[in-house]
């Protein structure tokens, strides 16, 4: 039976599709990061998750810092242009608040793992990793010989999440989605997963085609949710601007365990915390 991306409230979509221990992708390469959806996972108390993003970004720093993540699959765990992700580091260096298992890739490796996943193939192919120490620490990276030329190449195991969650600019009332700007691996992540949730800035009667837009028809989606500003502090091209100030402030907020925990309780977990809106510090 075909899916039909039904428009529904975000809490309902998350409750239906994500469980403790789920394998969840929340993609968006700097742009369109589904923060509001990620926060909903936290609000529903979901834990023991395996999560995947090329760049963990502040979202995974938050999820890891609250102890909801058992394993993270990633290729760059820093706060771009600012410095470290302190909660990510604390988990890896000190096992706080719980030990964190890592499956580490390069951007090209993880991107190709998603491509394979979306293609229903068992592995992705690239030239990278030879001579580096990464393959030694991963069961998902191995070397093969080209069957035609004999050249040594790298195979990366396909990624197939249980659920992929992304944020996009628009959906129409039938649940067809259109996103534009930097698209990262969003399309691949959606098509590689068993289920997909898309949060959108707006729902329109009809999608007007735009240059270079990525279109995801409703029949590959499980749920579409109207969440204006659902990418904050990341952004949605033509709807919002990246909150670079907040990314810088996060460095100070997240350095100290107690300050971080209080911030998360006040601004994300609290019942009256605003969804997807820039937060006024309390």
């Amino acid at each position, binding site marked *: 039976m075909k899916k039909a991306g039904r428009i529904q409230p975000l809490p309902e979509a998350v409750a239906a599709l994500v469980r403790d221990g789920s394998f969840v992708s929340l993609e968006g390469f700097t742009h369109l990061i589904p923060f509001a959806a990620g926060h909903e996972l936290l609000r529903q108390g979901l834990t023991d998750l395996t999560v995947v993003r090329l760049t963990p970004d502040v979202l995974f720093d938050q999820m890891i810092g609250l102890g909801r993540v058992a394993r993270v699959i990633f290729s760059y765990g820093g706060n771009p242009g600012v410095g470290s992700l302190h909660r990510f580091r604390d988990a890896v260096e000190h096992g706080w608040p719980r030990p964190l298992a890592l499956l580490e890739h*390069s951007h090209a490796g993880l991107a190709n793992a998603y491509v394979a996943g979306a293609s229903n193939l068992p592995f992705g192919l690239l030239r990278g990793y030879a001579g580096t120490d990464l393959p030694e620490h991963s069961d998902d990276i191995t070397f093969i010989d080209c069957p035609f030329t004999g050249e040594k190449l790298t195979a990366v195991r396909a990624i197939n999440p249980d659920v992929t969650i992304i944020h996009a600019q628009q959906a129409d009332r039938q649940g067809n989605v259109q996103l534009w700007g930097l698209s990262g691996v969003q399309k691949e992540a959606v098509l590689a997963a068993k289920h997909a949730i898309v949060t959108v800035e707006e729902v329109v009667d009809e999608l007007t085609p735009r240059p270079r837009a990525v279109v995801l028809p409703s029949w590959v989606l499980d749920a579409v949710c109207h969440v204006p500003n659902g990418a904050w502090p990341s952004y949605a091209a033509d709807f919002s601007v990246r909150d670079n100030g907040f990314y810088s402030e996060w460095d100070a907020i997240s350095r100290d365990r107690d300050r971080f925990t209080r911030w998360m309780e006040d601004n994300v977990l609290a019942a009256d915390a605003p969804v997807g809106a820039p937060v006024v510090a309390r």
Partner: protein
Amino acid sequence: MTIGAARELRDGEVVLVGVGPPNAAANLARRLDAPGCVLVYESGAIGARPQRLPLSIGDDDLAAGAQDLVSVPEMFNYWIGGGRIDVGFLGAAQIDRFGNINTTVIGDYAQPQVRLPGAGGAPEIARSAGRIIVLLRHSPRSFVGELDFITSVGRDLHGPTNGAPGSAVITDLGILRPCAEDGELELVAVHPGVELDDVREATGWPLRAREPLEVTEPVTERELSELRALRVSAEDE
């Protein structure tokens, strides 16, 4: 260092740019003598023309002005892996005498002393770009005899081609380039006021120096004023 890096770029080159100092260097080069440089960001922007210095490689301004935006798989498979980048910038926490780079961990992988961000685009950029520019501060903690982890490989970095300089490691003390014969990094120039011994002390292996050792050109008024203008536009948020 930013100015030194900007000087390495030739007009019209396709440059893969990362966060931080490489961002500044490439944008500075466009304002100076390489206005035709094509800026590529691994986030997917090709032919980016940022009005202001971006904080991240996915900033809105960067995407909005680009000639094209492609997906990340396309970027790494067709544009980077496919060999279309002339110059790639890389950062490093540690570097060794052959230009191998560590941005993964200080200490043991399973129980690191410091967990660094990780590979990102570096392994592909290192192996596929025509040449590489690494920017970092010169200290024995960074220039080490043996890396704690090899994140990207300083492959057989070649020497000058088509009038462009070869690969370079640019620091606050001077410039190193790979030897054509064995690929080992050699000091080719010091910045004004820096002595060879200063550089040797700051390097964790017996540093080879080319003779004659050059001195880099002092920073010009023009370079400085363009760099200031770039920085002001970045703070102007």
